[in-house]
């Protein structure tokens, strides 16, 4: 019998491709439908964040942090502002802390909703995407009545906030919680426990815990691999120690710990926990002034700090070096998506092309954050 000649197929996926979530380019080596090798090429959205920080004053950097991970601007700002506050030794008023917690958790819900919707889209189910955007609009409206912007807020300032919350904010948030809570069950019925969806995602792209830690995975991806670790609990910043909430980790429910389905499911469960935090915080916002601690000139002493917070995508760290002037000497952003994407080649080899799309979607990357 003559030998069958086989050839590897080299395919460029992206930078324009419906499921690369932006301008990511994947260089695939395929054997039929099986993925032999994946090489991510990034930098198509490199917007020179770090060079900009060196030319701007400290508060001017905040809008640029917004534009890094544009799906969770609030959390980006928080991490940066938190670092500066620690460096300058500013005590933030209690009211500010509460509002920040509420905003960050709302932002987490909004970000996870996009993750959910686009993930459904990757799987070929278009409807969850539209449902999740209906819910996301409600969150955006809350942001909009507070600071006027839908996407990029410039809301957290060093020592305070740009605006106080409006009078009807609390009642609106409560109304949102009431509307949104039953929808989570709807998403579970529509997508999470759909037989086809489970078949597509369970047991694909398994990331073992030791690899996850060694490769620097953080956030939902680390928790889906089975480690109960969340900066909000394990290295509590702000006032998270006051709230009672769980950290969702992967359980042996469907598939294997560390697979795509669990990465997706951890996010759904996190939304429930975020709602719990908001419920606890929203009634206890103390009276006070949100801008009393805002310094006129932000001029930290010579020094450096690595501040990190738990954003929806994982651990976002800013390494800020101050030389005592008005401009930062160096700001390095350690973005969660950047590290999480670097795991992709490790977990997608040997899967099919359709699985690769699902694995990439389960990492929930944002290219603005990767390329900065």
């Amino acid at each position: 019998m003559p030998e069958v000649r086989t050839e590897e197929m080299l395919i460029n996926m992206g930078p324009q491709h419906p499921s690369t979530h932006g301008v990511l380019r994947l260089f695939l080596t395929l054997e039929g439908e099986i993925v032999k090798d994946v090489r991510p090429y990034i930098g198509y959205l490199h917007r020179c964040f770090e060079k900009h920080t060196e030319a701007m004053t400290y508060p001017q950097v905040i809008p640029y942090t917004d534009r890094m991970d544009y799906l969770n601007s609030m959390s980006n700002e928080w991490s940066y502002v938190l670092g500066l506050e620690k460096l300058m030794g500013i005590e933030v008023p209690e009211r500010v802390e509460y509002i920040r917690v509420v905003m960050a958790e709302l932002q987490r819900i909004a970000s996870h909703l996009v993750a959910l919707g686009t993930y459904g889209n990757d799987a070929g189910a278009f409807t969850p995407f539209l449902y999740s955007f209906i819910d996301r609009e409600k969150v955006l409206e809350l942001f909009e009545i507070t600071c006027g912007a839908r996407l990029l807020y410039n809301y957290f300032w060093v020592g305070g906030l740009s605006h106080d919350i409006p009078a009807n904010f609390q009642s609106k948030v409560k109304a949102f919680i009431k509307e949104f809570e039953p929808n989570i069950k709807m998403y579970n019925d529509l997508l999470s426990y759909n037989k086809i969806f489970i078949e597509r995602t369970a047991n694909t792209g398994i990331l073992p815990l030791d690899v996850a830690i060694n490769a620097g995975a953080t956030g939902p991806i680390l928790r889906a691999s089975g480690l109960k670790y969340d900066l909000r609990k394990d290295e509590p910043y702000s006032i998270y120690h006051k709230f009672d909430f769980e950290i969702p980790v992967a359980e042996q429910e469907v598939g294997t710990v560390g697979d795509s389905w669990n990465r997706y499911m951890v996010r759904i469960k996190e939304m429930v926990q975020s709602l719990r935090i908001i419920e606890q915080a929203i009634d206890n916002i103390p009276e006070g002034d949100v801008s009393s601690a805002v310094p006129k000139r932000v001029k930290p002493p010579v020094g450096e700090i690595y501040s990190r917070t738990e954003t929806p995508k994982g651990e976002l760290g800013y390494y800020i070096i101050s030389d005592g002037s008005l401009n930062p000497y160096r700001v390095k952003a350690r973005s969660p998506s950047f590290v999480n994407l670097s795991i992709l080649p490790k977990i997608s080899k040997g899967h099919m092309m359709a699985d690769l799309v699902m694995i990439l979607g389960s990492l929930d990357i944002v290219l603005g954050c990767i390329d900065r």
Partner: protein
Amino acid sequence: MDNFITSLLGENILTFVLVTVPVIAFVAVFALYAVLGERKISAWMQNRVGPNRVGKGGVLQTIIDGLKLIQKEFVSPIRADKYIFNLAPIIVFTAAFMGFAVIPFSSIFIGADLNLGLFYFFAITSLGVIGLMIAGWSSNNKYSLYGAVRSVSQIVSYEIPTALAAIPVVMLAGSLSMQTIIHEQAGGILNWYIFGGPGAISKLILFPFMLTSAVILFISTLAETNRTPFDIVEADSEIVAGVHIEYSGMKFAMFFFAEYAQMFAVAAIVSTLFLGGWQSPFGDLIPFLNNPWIQFGWAISKGLLLVFVQIWLRWTLPRLRVDQLMTVCWKFLIPITLIDLFIIGLYAVL
């Protein structure tokens, strides 16, 4: 008297034209409105409005889409195999349309009542896969090649359960002619083959098996028309747009057209085999409703109902993976249809 036009005019060229034109017109109007229907139904399912600017409530949207597509430049990529590239949409469209020849719209109207009608239908619709194959191949695009390979493996595999699920009806009716099959189901909703066909004993015994066959036939025709959850041929999140990635303008519209025409064709086949085709569900209780002209309404509305189910499924379910698609076909559908076939065959012989 299979065709009132034939009986009126006899067999001549005018008859053939007169028989073909209404079918073409129907398919054209159907395809246009199925696209619009799909957009409207999906909008309705997703809390949206859907197209509403062109005409009242957007009723002319797809016509205007077509008018726009006529104006588009037709790009043929420099590396594409030009003749085959241009031929492919025509093959796909023709194959989809030729199936309509044997679809009975009424007891007095059918394009051609072949005594091998069902066989002809399966044979001719699978020609479409050749069109898809050469479309994907000649585009000289890796994504469309993937689409082509996927479409061939998918459609060829699903031919088997489609045929196997249709055979029980053929055995019970004793004919491959579409009109005969429908005539066998006369006498109201309970005599339809989905409920086991005419005859009290056969209903009791055959109902579960015929129902399974009907469901399997519906599922595998979904796969043959590349509808979700089996739309891996044009899965946008994986291979962008599959075989028609390089087609623009009217050539692309022809693929679109063919897909929607085929949706109705397979729906009509399912309704002919299992839902009594043009038979009124009330049988002889209300003789007026079995009037040959009302029968058009029954045939079309049963088809549309099944098309609606196809659209409904598309906007609800995620899609399967290639290997899972094959697993469903070879490990589930084919064994189940074989068992079905055996039992129904046993019954038919006895």
